[in-house]
């Protein structure tokens, strides 16, 4: 937008009949003079597009509950962002799409039947405490959507563990695949985990939809593959070792597809703001988060640990960044 403005101003100043250039026509700037034409809103809206399959799957399984939850979170996030920017007398930047991403992700991590007022509270918390308190986009330490979810888990634990059966929309308790593993010691068929015909948060049930969105996200380079890859590989590896010890721990494919792991790995652990910038740092983030997930799932009080694993590694990110500064070309001693 800014470049268009400069263009108009320039055209006005050009004297078509004069041979010499008048002063003020040439713009002066530091090199480089080219860019890839990839913008910040472009990246954010790209993430929104990659979320479409997941939102579509949740709408298929949870009907109007999905629409209600996504819209509630989306609008609350946008309004909260705007209010905060008005209070702080900062430019309104809703068009950058970051609050839209947070809103959709927030909804996707909530139980389908969560009352609307709880979703509103969670979204306000996500944007205000999760993001704006730190100074807005780019400055937050924790993933805003997960901060909102953590707030709801802490304040309304029962609402946050009341699940809905897909398609029939019957309320069931404690019946997520990981809950069934933990408390009933049996595994849900992998095919149901893949399609999403299981209990769980709005966006985490259908592994297939997440994989489709993830492929788009990674192929368009909106996110780096290192974190999700090392995250999933660590969970699969650790789960594999434990499965060999005792099949009661659950098989590696089960652990990969069940719960919020895929959603977290593809859409939360790839949040650029709250994850390391160095290549080694991204691997460390994935391995650390993967280890925490397996620990919580198998020996923790809760059946699921994706949220805590990512928030935990978010907190370590500045430290990881500082200790993984790459050796520059010619820097080897």
């Amino acid at each position: 937008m800014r470049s268009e403005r400069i263009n108009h101003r320039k055209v006005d100043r050009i004297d078509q009949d004069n041979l010499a250039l008048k002063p003020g026509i040439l713009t002066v700037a530091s090199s480089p003079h080219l860019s890839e034409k990839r913008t910040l809103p472009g990246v954010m809206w790209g993430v929104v597009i990659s979320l479409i399959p997941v939102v579509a799957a949740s709408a298929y399984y949870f009907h109007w509950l999905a629409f209600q939850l996504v819209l509630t979170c989306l609008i609350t996030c946008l309004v909260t962002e705007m209010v905060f920017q008005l209070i702080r007398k900062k430019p309104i930047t809703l068009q950058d799409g970051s609050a839209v991403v947070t809103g959709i992700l927030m909804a996707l991590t909530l139980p389908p039947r969560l009352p609307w007022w709880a979703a509103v509270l969670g979204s306000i918390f996500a944007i205000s405490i999760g993001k704006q308190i730190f100074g807005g986009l780019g400055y937050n330490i924790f993933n805003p959507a997960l901060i909102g979810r953590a707030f709801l888990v802490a304040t309304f634990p029962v609402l946050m563990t009341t699940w809905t059966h897909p398609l029939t929309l019957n309320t069931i308790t404690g019946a997520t695949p990981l809950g069934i593993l933990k408390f009933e010691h049996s595994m849900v068929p992998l095919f149901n985990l893949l399609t999403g015909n299981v209990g769980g948060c709005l966006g985490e049930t259908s592994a297939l939809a997440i994989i489709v969105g993830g492929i788009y996200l990674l192929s368009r380079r909106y996110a780096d593959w290192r974190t999700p890859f090392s995250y999933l590989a660590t969970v699969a590896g650790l789960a594999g070792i434990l499965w060999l010890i005792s099949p009661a721990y659950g098989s590696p494919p089960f652990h990969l597809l069940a719960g919020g792991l895929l959603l977290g790995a593809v859409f939360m652990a790839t949040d650029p703001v709250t994850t390391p910038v160095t290549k080694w740092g991204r691997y460390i983030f994935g391995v650390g988060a993967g280890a925490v997930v397996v620990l919580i799932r198998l020996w923790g009080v809760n059946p699921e640990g994706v949220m805590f694993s990512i928030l935990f590694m978010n907190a370590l990110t500045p430290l990881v960044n500082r200790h993984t500064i790459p050796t520059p070309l010619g820097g080897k001693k």
Partner: protein
Amino acid sequence: MIRLKTFCQGIHLFQEKSPTAGKRIRKVSLPEEVILSLQQHIGAPGQPLVKKGDQVKRGDKIADSKSFVSAPIHASISGVITAIKLAPHPAGGKAKAIFIKREKGEEEEAWSVKNKPEANLSHFSAQEIRDRVREAGIVGMGGAAFPTHVKLTPPQGKPIDVVILNGCECEPYLTGDHRLMLERPDDCLFGFKAVIKAVGAQRGYIGIENNKRDAITLFRDKTAGEENIEVVPLKTKYPQGGEKILVKAILKREVPSGGLPLDVGVVVSNVGTAVAISECLKMNKPLIERVVTVSGSAVEKPVNLLVPLGITFATILRECALSRSKVMRVIMGGPMMGISQATLEVPVIKGTTAILALSNEEVSVPADNPCIHCGRCVDHCPTGLLPAELARLIRAGQWERLKNYHLMDCIECGCCVYVCPAGIPIVQLIKLGKLQLGEKSSS
């Protein structure tokens, strides 16, 4: 298919070389006046050897310096000295320059071609080559303009075993080196061999990016019988032609932080420099003209021009039909590392590889949004730095912490800014940071 040699990271740029790549180098009509800046190279500026009113012939030495890291300057047209005063400099600001007004009539040359009718490298000793190159005022023609005789004088205890002829030309739009390789391959090779002889190297590599297949084939044919010279096709990737990057790509040697290629036994020479060396040895001709690529979408007749040093950008752009309604930025050099110009009344200097007139559609305007730590700059930095982190620390003035982030290893290639979605002017901040760090350490 053999795997092409290359370096890690970097970026794939659009090329935009087609407007000029297929056209022969054309000689520009002689200008009425030239402005020969006394600061055309890295090192000490020249001291004028002439005064106002003096008559000079084309090729007369008009400025020199006693300093080792410097190069003499010669008159690029015959005429009369009209002034020695400050003039706008294409690298920014003003510098002292010698103005020569052309006299009508025949162009007389101060050097004599008859000195060495059929030059042969065995006629020259290494020292003779160095002396001639210095007297001819030859500097690195790839843009850096580092005095070549200094490069040809490796310090004691640093033996040179390899010379690389740099024919990468990795910046978009630029085709001057490509054309020189196609049109004057024998001069390129002669100059290249002179460099090998002067530094006493055993082997020579000719690095050419894979987008110049015709040049690769031509040089393979020309060097077919030479055992110690090898043509190395390289992946077309920016910044393949950066000295340190090229050394890494071809030899897998890493120039140490803060060092020069000679620290790892290598001298890198640009093809333009090789041609200039050849001319100086064969014809006794000093460096008074160079090939300049004139391109960009605001130029209606893009072309490679052979121009006398000191001709103004305005003269050249007029000849190439600059579109005044389109032009938004005029750059000396390539679009990735070139310097934007505030006025067109600046002269061509020895390091002017190109004059690009770019339109609004081609030029990027940095948005300077907040950094989202996406790490794209990290993934593309050819020297393995953390560019956005450097930019952040420089902005915050955290000089102590900056010490861990290798600021001085940045080659300012601009890959980070090119890929940055937030449009942070990282290179600008890094240049500023280097300056301020230098001031801090000197005070």
